[in-house]
């Protein structure tokens, strides 16, 4: 069945010698099953001597599941690596209104429709709870039973700087710095991915030189995306003290999903007070939504890794730039989601 | 009192009437056409099948031998026994079979019927959930569901109007209410979703933890009525029963 007109085999068209088989689908499925299974096992609470504990022994097996998924991805990419864009599946002439549009582009747009539904549902949950649970600010000054559920938004800890409100720059608290860096990182990375696409299509450069430029732009996108995740981890778990800038991590600031007894201090002087409140809901919604976005960034990083390697090997050129465009569509969507998530969760 | 209570029965009879009409029209139409439009030679397509199979293998052989000829079965003889009124042919999008007037007819008539059914259902809905001013004289009784029993709270009403006890025969909890008095049952739950259902009266509403829902109940016949749980709530969901006793 190998129909080799001198083109490299690609995964997309049998008439161009694409194989009819692939190990990747079954491996990725098994890996996903293994991961979810052992994650569930690791995080279901068991009763121990002193109340409830997690028995985290199965966690390495959950990570093994992720490794299996990765192995499946490698199998997938090995089939795609040699693809050089000598053909790009296009809609048939009969397929109005998509005639002659790249099929993979249509696929990416349709995929993004389902991604919209994911983020809509997350925002749905957020709106539902934010509008119904009293904010802790509104309960200030009243007598509140300890452990009452109230909404202390993440913006209290980040945009307002929480209890610490250390502000080196004056116009914003230091706690907002990672978020601000992240926003610019994603916006700039949207720019670099477009530059990677434009450079790949340039016909006025030598292939070797063009490949290096494309690789560099893709690499810049990769680095910016990684910076995003690193900043997020610092903001969530690590905290920072760099020069005059300092802010505690959200976790050390007690903004956690298990915190049903957070001491909320408010007011100054004569009107100062404190109450013990349950902030689990605000924390749950915050970490799930921003976490889902982070997982999407991570998926992009994984894809970018593959693309950087392929660019380095000279795999992209004017005849083979389409997949950068498709990834770019996804990446712009991730950026757009952040542009919605950031004000809604970090600033409001 | 028939099952479901009086309001239910009224609507039920009306809906059943229209359902039977729609059903009869549809089934008579279907049975009529299934008989009248049968093909006269039942096995013709079987014979055609045999012919087609032979034809296919012949085509295949000829192709392998390098010959290229187009041919098909003689249609004439078959046409009489298995008419092809729309001239259905493989690879050809068939001739339109359309009648706008007819289709509009059976769009508009069902639409009108549905609007009618919706209209007659509206008032009974208001009877089940009356508005606030209609409930000025109502007595409030608390009903709390918990895995796996019902907790009734008479809220200080006199024992004539509301009383909680235990049934000697069955051992079930009994809520005694008075005939022809209007009660607002405030439902809630201490753990998971439950739903008290006064089965014969056909009244139910979910008891949701963290909020209050209501059933408005004006008993109009005396007796001991079965109350069971109508929202799955765990192990003993089937056994979460009680009795509502209506006395004069």
């Amino acid at each position, binding site marked *: 069945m190998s129909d080799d007109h001198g083109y490299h085999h690609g995964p997309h068209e049998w008439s161009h010698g694409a194989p*009819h088989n692939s*190990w990747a*689908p*079954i491996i990725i*499925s098994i890996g996903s*099953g293994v991961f*979810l*299974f052992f*994650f*569930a096992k690791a995080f*279901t609470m068991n009763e121990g001597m002193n109340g409830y504990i997690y028995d985290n022994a199965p966690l390495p097996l959950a990570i093994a599941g992720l490794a*299996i998924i990765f192995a499946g991805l490698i199998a997938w990419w090995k089939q795609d690596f040699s693809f050089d864009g000598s053909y790009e599946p296009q809609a048939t002439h*009969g397929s*109005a209104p998509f005639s*002659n549009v790249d099929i993979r582009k*249509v696929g990416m747009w349709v995929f993004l*429709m389902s991604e919209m539904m*994911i983020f809509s549902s997350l925002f*749905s*949950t957020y709106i539902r*709870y934010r509008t119904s649970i009293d904010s802790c600010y509104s309960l200030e000054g009243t007598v509140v039973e300890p452990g009452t559920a109230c909404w202390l938004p993440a913006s209290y800890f980040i945009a307002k700087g929480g209890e610490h409100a250390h502000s080196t720059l004056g116009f914003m608290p230091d706690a907002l710095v990672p978020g601000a860096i992240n926003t610019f990182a994603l916006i700039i990375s949207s720019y670099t991915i477009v530059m990677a696409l434009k450079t790949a*299509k340039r016909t006025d450069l030598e292939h070797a030189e063009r490949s290096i430029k494309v690789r560099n732009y893709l690499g810049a996108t990769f680095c910016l995306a990684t910076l995003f995740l690193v900043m997020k981890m610092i903001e969530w778990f690590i905290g920072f003290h760099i020069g005059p800038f300092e802010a505690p991590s959200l976790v050390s600031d007690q903004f956690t999903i298990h915190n*049903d007894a957070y001491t909320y201090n408010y007011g100054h002087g004569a009107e100062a007070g404190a109450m013990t409140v*349950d902030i689990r809901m605000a924390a*749950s919604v915050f970490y799930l939504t921003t976490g889902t976005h982070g997982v999407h960034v991570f998926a992009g990083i994984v894809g970018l890794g593959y693309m950087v390697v392929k660019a380095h090997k000279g795999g992209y050129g*004017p005849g083979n730039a389409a997949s950068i465009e498709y990834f770019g569509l996804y990446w712009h969507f991730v950026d757009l989601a952040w542009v919605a998530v950031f004000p809604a969760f970090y600033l409001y | 009192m028939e099952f479901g*209570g009086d309001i*239910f029965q009224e609507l039920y009879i009306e*809906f059943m009437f229209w359902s039977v009409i729609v059903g009869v029209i*549809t089934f008579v139409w279907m049975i009529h*056409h*299934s008989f009248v439009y049968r*093909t006269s030679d039942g096995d013709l397509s079987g014979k055609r099948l045999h012919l*087609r199979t032979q034809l296919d293998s012949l085509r295949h052989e000829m192709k392998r031998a390098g010959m290229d000829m187009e041919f098909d079965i003689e249609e004439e003889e078959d046409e009489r026994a298995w*008419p092809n009124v*729309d001239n*259905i042919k*493989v690879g*050809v*999008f068939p001739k339109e079979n*359309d009648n706008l007037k007819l*289709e509009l007819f059976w769009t508009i008539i069902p639409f009108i019927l549905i609007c009618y059914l*919706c209209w007659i259902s509206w008032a*009974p809905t208001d*009877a*089940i959930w009356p508005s606030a001013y209609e409930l000025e004289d109502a007595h409030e009784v608390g009903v709390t569901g*918990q895995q796996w029993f019902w907790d009734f709270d008479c809220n200080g009403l006199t024992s004539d109007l509301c009383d909680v006890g235990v049934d000697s025969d069955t*051992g079930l909890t009994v809520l005694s209410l008075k005939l022809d008095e209007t009660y607002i049952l405030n439902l809630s739950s201490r753990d*998971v*979703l439950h739903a008290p*259902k006064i089965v014969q009266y056909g009244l*139910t509403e*979910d008891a949701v933890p*963290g909020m209050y829902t209501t059933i408005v109940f004006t008993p109009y016949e005396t007796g001991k*009525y*079965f109350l069971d749980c*109508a929202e799955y709530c765990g192990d003993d*969901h*089937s056994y*979460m029963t009680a009795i509502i006793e209506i006395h004069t």
Partner: protein
Amino acid sequence: MQIRNVWTVRAMVIVAVLFAALMFSPEHEARPTGISSVDSGCSCHSQTPSSEVDASITLANGSALPESYEAGTTYTLFISFSGGPAEDNIPGRLNTGGFNLVASKGTLTPIDNTTQILAGELTHTDAGNDQQAWNADWTAPTSGSAVLRLMVNSVNGNADGQGGGSSGDAWNTVSYTVSGAGGEAPTMKADGLTVLFSGILLTAILFAIALTYVFYVRDPESFSWARFKPWISHWLTSTDHKNVGTLYFVSGLFFLGVGGILAMMIRIQLSSPGNDFLTKDEYNSFFTLHGTVMIFLAAMPLINGFANWIVPLQIGAKDLCFPRLNAMSFWLQPAGAVLLLTGMFSGMGADVGWTGYQPITSTTDHYGATFWLAGQVLLVASSTLTGINFIVTIATMRAPGMGWMQMPLFTWSIIVSVMMLFISIPTFGIGLIEAYLDRTISTTFYNTSAGGDPLLWSHLFWYFGHPEVYVVVVPAFGVISEVIATSARRTIFGYRSMVYALAGIGFVAFIVYGHHMLTSGMSPLYRFVVMLTTMLVAVPTGIKIFNWLKTMHGGSLVYRTHTLWALGFLVTFTLGGISGMFFPAIAMDVHLHETYFVVAHFHYVLVGGTVFGLFAAFYYWYPKITGRMMSERLGILHFLIGFISYNGVFWPMHKLGLLGMTRRHHTYYIRADEYSDIIGTLPPEAAQWNQFITVCAFIFFLSNLIMVYNIIASMLNGRKAPADPWGGWSFEWLVSSPPPTPSFDEIPTLENANPDHEPGMLTGMLERIMTPDPDDEGEEAGH
């Protein structure tokens, strides 16, 4: 395909080792719940019983329970336990001892204020909650073996500390059998779980034997490992739409059997009132898994099987546009199935109903619920990918001459179905993830004490759940359109309105989901809106039914098995649709909610709709798929027995529901004995009806084996099928049976018997916007 290199082998070995680890991993400890609102808590029947607690029943005078009783005599029982934390006797601790005693025959009577009867079972009172021994009377019945089952709780009375009052408690159970005066031996009791496991294992073994036999008969001489290896690795890795379709059929039919066995277990349990063939726990997880397996592992895969096989053939494409993604959609299903069924066989399967309402799903002590949620997340991923694949394929890979309004109706039904699916299912996925995180890392999405709202789950679930039921029934509509038109040898009547009706159903499906929540405290305005929109769905559906009937007019109906199933569909789906009209009238919904009327309605539309449509599809497209004709005799037998027994199962359920029989109940109450003056319990004939339903259910279950046998036997001995056995017009009838790979050497062009028509205005406008301009820089290179 050959196994390429040693790394693939190593990867497979690692995977196999992991699977072995999975099988032997130790049993889970559940997160206990129980009566957690009582201050000092007690842990009832969750976790495993503790051997340090010893329960016993003796007679009050100290001697052991008699081997056999004397009819009508009253015995004073001494119920006690020793061991466990209650014996620590720490002062100030409360509620340290509790028990629950059930007598299968005879009557239990409290004799002091330390015990009471609650719902027919003897248990302690508040006053009697601090002891380790109680007295009560038991009056022996006149005949029959009596089983006295005792559960005791040894509670440490510890109300503080993290984890609440249930930590440190221990419980145990003991059972005594006192036989009747005649000394009759107690009857053996079948254990529900054992029966289920045996049934499923038997099905799996029969399946494996059938597959192996088919492989063997095809080529007996080369029945060796050397030939098997490439064959199995071809099937595990194939991305060809025809192979993936076959995989969906195999998996779908297997799980149809599993779901059917679960249904049989439920029916045995319900065949008589007060039955205890299944314990409450088992019953709860069986009805949960029956629903989940049937919808997600049987109905949807079978539909996907036909979509995979037939849609590319009908639109004249060589395959779907993303073949590997398609294969992944399939393989995510067995992975999800393993997760879904986790815990089933150790009594810890998910017991939350397929609807998984909160907060019970986040708090149930059955650990299977966590895995059930995870399995469904995988199925969500599978469905989303399927959606993307089919939408893009149908939109972009059609043969020349096939505009949107020239597509076969089955293809239309698939694109509408899949469009509904992939828009609604991500919402369900988010709901599932929230519930999964609640159960694992203790987020509080549905935790009412932290402000969580159980109704949020209801919204997220039903926003998906209602379109979902249309997702499974719309392809059946497509099949019926094809079958009736071909059987009557006519064009389908009103093609355009059929398409608009499908699109209308697809849209309206999203705005009516509130009708599943009519009794959850809905505001009057929304109640009315939901009522109106739900009733309006009957309009496009009615159009379709009338169009099908009109198609037969003037035609020449040939009666084949697929024709019979299509006509059967018309009967049952119409009945199901009519019974569905009763619910939106809310004054009726309050009576019918959660009764067997609901069960009757949705089985009429799901089985009488989807499954009958799938049966018709099987008989219709089998010759194309396998190249053989099925036996018509067996087909007609299947239809007659199946159709009649099916109606025998579900028609009486309407009546039972009207009488007030509540669904998801482990057993039901008949107006007899001490319940004879309570109105609202079921009349005695309800027991007879239930028995009748159970018998018919078994007949229906077995009748489907006729089809399975037919499928296998015809594959081996059936007459060879031509390309177009039934006289259809769409492209799948152009290629040989079975089709070669690739299906089309040359993509055919669809001719049109109708006179020239203009392309639609909308299409023209979109085309002008979307078609890339050939002068656009960079676009032309390489294309």
